[in-house]
């Protein structure tokens, strides 16, 4: 049905979406690049002009930078490890015959629908609070001293919160993939005498490979942008102990009013996100042909 008329009509139908996204992408990016080579601090607006790569140098050599990179890697890596391993185990469990499967699914998926500030506040106050949080109660209950989770282990605590938010996503996607597995293959393997571990290792895991890839890549994109959870719980501290790259850029821009350095940090963040994006596009693009 690709006549000349329908082709031009199609182009017309497509143009609003394409133009809007083009503007949405190019205008802010161009401005960010422009600011990143300017001296631009909202506190000293009279001092301006080109500084070329000084902002990049300032951002990369700031004492918090390498710690922020390390924290970002730990946050993303830690959450991925917990959610993918936990997701596989829970998906395998829920996929078994059991009573009340529908309700179990609903309970497991629920944290995904909790808006980030609510999740962060619930954990911060009702669980991590060193004087009357539930964890402090539990520790007291077994005769241990209460522990200031967000003060003493800020990054690990944030990893717990974020992993709780994303575990349902991983579980749901892995469960969906698991349910598309041909049960005859499993039965055949069982009859050939394959034990449960081997059935998992050689049939299920390869079948789940693509779903795992998709989970890892999509979560990475969202995890690189985690901000509100840090803002609400630790504000990046104590010191810079729970400052990630995203939070560092936010801090430069909002708390220090240094637009130039923040823009340079933003460009660094864009580059990192793009490296991940390339891998994701390949994984999804391959699937389009199928």
């Amino acid at each position, binding site marked *: 049905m690709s006549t000349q008329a329908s082709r031009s009509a199609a182009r017309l139908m497509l143009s609003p979406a394409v133009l809007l996204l083009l503007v949405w*992408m190019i205008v802010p990016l161009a401005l960010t690049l422009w600011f990143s080579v300017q001296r631009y601090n909202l506190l000293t607006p009279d001092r301006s002009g080109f500084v070329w790569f000084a902002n990049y140098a300032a951002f990369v050599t700031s004492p918090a930078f390498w710690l922020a990179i390390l924290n970002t890697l730990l946050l993303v890596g830690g959450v991925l490890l917990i959610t993918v391993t936990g997701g596989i185990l829970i998906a395998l469990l829920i996929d078994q015959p059991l009573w009340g499967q529908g309700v179990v699914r609903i309970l497991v998926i629920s944290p995904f629908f909790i*808006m980030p500030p609510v999740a962060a506040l619930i954990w*911060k106050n009702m669980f991590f609070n060193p004087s009357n949080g539930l964890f402090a109660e539990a520790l007291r209950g077994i005769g241990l001293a209460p522990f200031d989770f967000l003060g003493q282990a800020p990054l690990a605590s944030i990893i717990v919160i974020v992993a709780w938010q994303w575990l*349902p996503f991983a579980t749901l996607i892995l469960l969906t993939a698991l349910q598309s597995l041909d049960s005859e293959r499993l039965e055949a393997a069982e009859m050939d005498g394959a034990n449960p571990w081997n059935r998992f290792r050689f049939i299920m895991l390869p079948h789940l490979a693509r779903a795992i890839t998709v989970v890892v890549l999509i979560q990475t994109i969202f995890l690189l942008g985690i901000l509100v959870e840090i803002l609400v719980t630790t504000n990046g501290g104590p010191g810079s102990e729970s400052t990630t790259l995203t939070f560092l850029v936010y801090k430069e821009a909002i708390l220090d009013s240094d637009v130039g350095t923040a823009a340079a940090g933003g460009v660094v*963040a864009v580059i990192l996100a793009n490296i991940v994006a390339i891998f994701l*596009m390949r994984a999804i693009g391959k699937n389009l042909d199928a």
Partner: protein
Amino acid sequence: MARAVSTQRKAVNTALAWGVALLIAFPILWTFLTSFKPEPQAVASPPVWFGFDWTVRNYVDVQRQRDYFDYFWNSVVLALGSTALGLVIAIPAAWSMAFVPGAKTKDLLMWMLSTKMMPGVAVLVPIYLVFVWLGLLDTRIGLVVVLMLINLPIIVWMLYTYFREIPGEILEAARMDGASLGREILYVLTPMAIPGIASTVLLNIILAWNEAFWTIVLTTTNAAPLTKFISGFSSPQGLFYAKLSAASTMAIAPILIMGWFSQKQLVRGLTFGAVK
């Protein structure tokens, strides 16, 4: 994998699965429970489970602050507004890519997806300044547009995967009968794609409702939704747990219920059709 298993094994599975599920949902269940406690019992040590003086006072108190409903209403307007606007722009685009695919269609879809990967914080300052210049800061219309743009790639993608399942011949038949393109999309395609469109709407409302970056940095009071309201809840330090719980419950309940009905769509929408 419906295989015959012994009742005994099914019972063990059930116990395990319910244990894990309750553990995962525990923070939400606990918040819900706490929202009905009087403040002193909310911070009681050891914690009170069910034997407390049940009350709805916390909800009344949160409601009485009146601003709560302003925030709630803003959340509704932003979620519905951005979804409606997104649909108007995405339906023609998805029609175009699904039924008149060109050599560049796949690249175009990929490029749309790539706009989603731009870290918000990297373009925070430019967007903020553009909002200041255009007078859009803390306005609903500005945020509706931003939320629409953020989710537009997902809407286009989801609609595209649903539209592709509709046979093109039906649309062609309508055209043979002399239907204009606009009528073809409005009266032939849209009714057939209603389930897919409904799924897309559902997921988009959830995503827009829970969006907690732009809604927080681009608003102060007038256009501030529940994400802003909740994140502004100053550290209660043990004094307002019950009220915090009531406010949290009110903020998450509508979307939690919608979410339960959207499990399948969630998988499809968030994996861009890669896992169905």
